[in-house]
């Protein structure tokens, strides 16, 4: 089940200046680039940050996917392209960007 996207009013309470939304966009771009370049250490660092922060700011789905990836990463399991694609799709939806077809 997809969780509701926070309303503008909710986001205003948690992120009055919209800086977290700006961070999501930067993280989205960085994840896409790092995934392509294979820089997995930096990718894990960004995903770990999203695992802790996204849910706090009301982006529950992004947070849930990031937590899944982070947990697997901490357990020593490989990060799969499919998981990264899911995370990017969730980021794109939250940011109001059209999702790319698989």
């Amino acid at each position, binding site marked *: 089940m997809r969780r509701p996207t926070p309303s503008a009013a909710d986001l205003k309470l948690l992120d009055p200046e919209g*800086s977290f939304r700006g*961070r999501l966009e930067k993280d989205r771009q960085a994840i896409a680039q790092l995934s392509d370049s294979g820089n997995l250490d930096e990718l894990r660092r960004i995903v770990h940050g999203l*695992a802790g922060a996204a849910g706090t700011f009301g982006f529950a789905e992004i947070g849930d996917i990031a937590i899944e990836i982070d947990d697997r990463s901490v357990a020593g399991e490989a990060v799969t392209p499919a998981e990264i694609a899911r995370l990017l799709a969730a980021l794109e939806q939250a940011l109001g960007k059209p999702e790319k077809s698989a």
Partner: protein
Amino acid sequence: MTMDIAAAEGDAAARSDRTAAAAFEARILVVEDDESIAALLGRELRGLGHAVDSVRFAEDALLAARANDYALMIVDLGLPDGDGLDLVREMRRRSVEAPILMLTARRRVEDRVIGLSSGADDYLVKPFAVPEMRARVTALLRRPSRLRGHRISIANVVVDTDALEAVVDGVSLALPRKQFQLLELLARRKNHMTPKRMIEETLYGFDDDVSANSIEAQISKLRRALKAAGAGVALETRRGIGYRLLGSSQAPN
């Protein structure tokens, strides 16, 4: 739960917390390298009326703790220059006694146990709900025994919580145990109203038989003892609200 409900609950909790915190402004150190989380914590804690210092690195946190008298520290576990667990252990080794709320994305029970065993007083898992963070901060700040300092001064009165002694103008004032505990609590919260319920919780255990006027009687005895010793303080009563210890120059006429 929808976000609207969460926001409404958050608003209600914020109002409640702000009311509770209005009488007690604390200085809080936030040790967090995630800029978004650090900014959120700073904004929320300042909204509760507290002063907030924020650092990203464990080394800076140690320097800040040495230079300042914090009422509470919020410490993230994953810091760029080290493990937050090591930082907490080092703080405790250096006798930093401020309550520590550990903040972490580590969700396993064993992680929480290790965190608390290392010297943290409470543990909040990220992602967290802002109303829960506010409530935990308020609860930690409410613990009078963990507030700062072993020697609390107000006017010519010094309360030495290590020696369990009150001193007025350099002369020891012999007080029964409950009156000393009462004086310590009021001195820690000097200039702020202390609710009667908080005094009851400090002075009496669950099983103690507390009569309706027990607190009033203890207040009255303490007031007389302070006056007889020449203490330059006033113990103010506000009916239905609580009690407040003031330096005499601050006492209302």
